[in-house]
């Protein structure tokens, strides 16, 4: 090995050691408010393979733990088997609650099916897909309801829909999306949902939902979603969801509505970042 490769290998080794030692799990203390257990959740999470995601289901579960999420729904694009693997793994390690879900990617709409058991066909109108979700005991949530998807949610579909993503990372990137999500949410009596539409990029739970459930079981979470017992906060300080629960949460000093904020990186994290990027650059250019 020439000296450049030794330098690259050394930098990457330092980065791996610093990164691995700084990679710790932060757990949420159990929070009870008004007789409900408050759960921090993200219901739109994708895993490898088949869904344009980079992390395998078990890695996704560990990442959810690291981001202090009490519950996630793994929502494969038009399939549920990856979610079932994630749910099984989380059960084994005592991780966060993993709900089996699917993002039904149809040509005219995207719909989250949360708490289902088997794959729901995408070649059907939104109202029919929602009926099938309900038959399986799940809840139907409109995924990133941009204007282009509105036509698929006709009056029949809207009367059956349980919730809508009022907050999604697109809202921070494109202002029209921020407005369209809120306008869609205002179209009906819908459960407020904040999701990160996670594909392995950035922090899981960057947009999240606070669910007020009787416990952290999948059935209790689905019941809470069906009952509209959620609160969502955006980075502009605006809140969505059940007004009584928003008030209840605001009264409790232990409730932190900004859990999506990453703590500032410490020395080890910065060391891992700088040495890692520099080491890989050397390795790529001079390997």
């Amino acid at each position, binding site marked *: 090995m020439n000296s450049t490769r030794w330098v690259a290998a050394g930098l990457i080794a330092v980065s791996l050691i610093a990164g*691995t030692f700084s990679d710790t799990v932060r757990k949420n203390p159990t929070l009870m408010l008004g007789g409900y257990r408050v759960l921090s959740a993200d219901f739109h999470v994708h895993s490898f393979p088949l869904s344009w995601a*980079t992390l395998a289901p078990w890695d996704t579960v560990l990442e959810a733990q690291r981001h202090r999420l009490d519950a996630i729904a793994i929502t494969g694009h038009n399939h549920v088997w990856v979610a079932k693997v994630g749910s099984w793994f989380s059960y084994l390690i005592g991780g966060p609650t993993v709900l089996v879900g699917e993002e039904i990617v*149809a040509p005219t709409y995207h719909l989250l099916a949360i708490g289902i058991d088997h794959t729901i066909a995408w070649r059907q109108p939104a109202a029919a897909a929602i009926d099938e979700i309900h038959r399986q005991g799940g809840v139907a949530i409109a995924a990133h309801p941009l204007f282009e998807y509105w036509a698929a949610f006709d009056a029949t579909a809207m009367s059956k829909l349980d919730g809508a993503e009022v907050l999604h990372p697109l809202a921070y990137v494109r202002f029209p999306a921020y407005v369209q999500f809120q306008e869609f949410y205002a179209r009906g009596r819908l459960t407020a949902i904040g999701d990160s539409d996670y594909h392995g990029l950035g922090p899981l739970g*960057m947009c999240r939902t606070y669910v007020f459930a009787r416990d952290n079981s999948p059935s209790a979470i689905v019941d809470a979603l069906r009952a509209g017992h959620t609160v969502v906060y955006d980075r502009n300080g605006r809140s969505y969801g059940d007004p009584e629960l928003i008030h209840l949460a605001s009264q409790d000093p232990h409730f932190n509505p900004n859990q999506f904020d990453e703590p500032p990186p410490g020395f080890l994290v910065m060391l891992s*970042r700088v040495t890692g990027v520099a080491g890989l650059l050397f390795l790529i250019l001079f390997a």
Partner: protein
Amino acid sequence: MTSTTSTPASLPTLRVMLRPAASYQELSRLPVVSSKWLAVRRPLLFAFVLGCTVSFAASGRLTLRLVVPATIYAAFVAIIEVVALMAVRPRTLSKATSQSFCRSVDLFFSGFGPWLLWLLSFAAVWTFAAPVNAFRWAGPHWDLYVVGALALWSGYIDFCFFRYVFQTTPQRAARCLLMQRAISWTLAVIIFGGGPLRSEIVRSLGI
């Protein structure tokens, strides 16, 4: 061998990125180096950089928890590339040019510089920028333009590989390139994002 020529073992990726035609012409004249390690080392580097990118993008650091499994999963991309290369390798010509398959793999992957640099820049954005800014700068729409430009650049590099390492005509090199891309990219898209593929096709065609 003169002192001005490099052996494949010491060929910097940078040279192939910047002067692919000259680099591959020079390499095609070098004596055959036969070692199985040649078929593994650059595909492994590609998988490792991909694994590191996954770790940086997800957790903002290099952690063994993510680098190790992600490198293993990323190996499927490298394997697909090798399979596609095997499929398009002109067998009769390769005998004439006396290129061992292991060496072909090594030289082919030495042309992956643009993709590796893109992965690294992508990782750097997700690592150093605030999440909202990273979504803005490296989100799906931005990627399309960059990936398009990279596809052209890497396409030219691989064209030079087929032209000079396999010593084929320009027409045959172009055919090899298109076939290699068709095989490898189709397989990668199916494995990586095959779930909504049929629905997306229906939407795109307006069926």
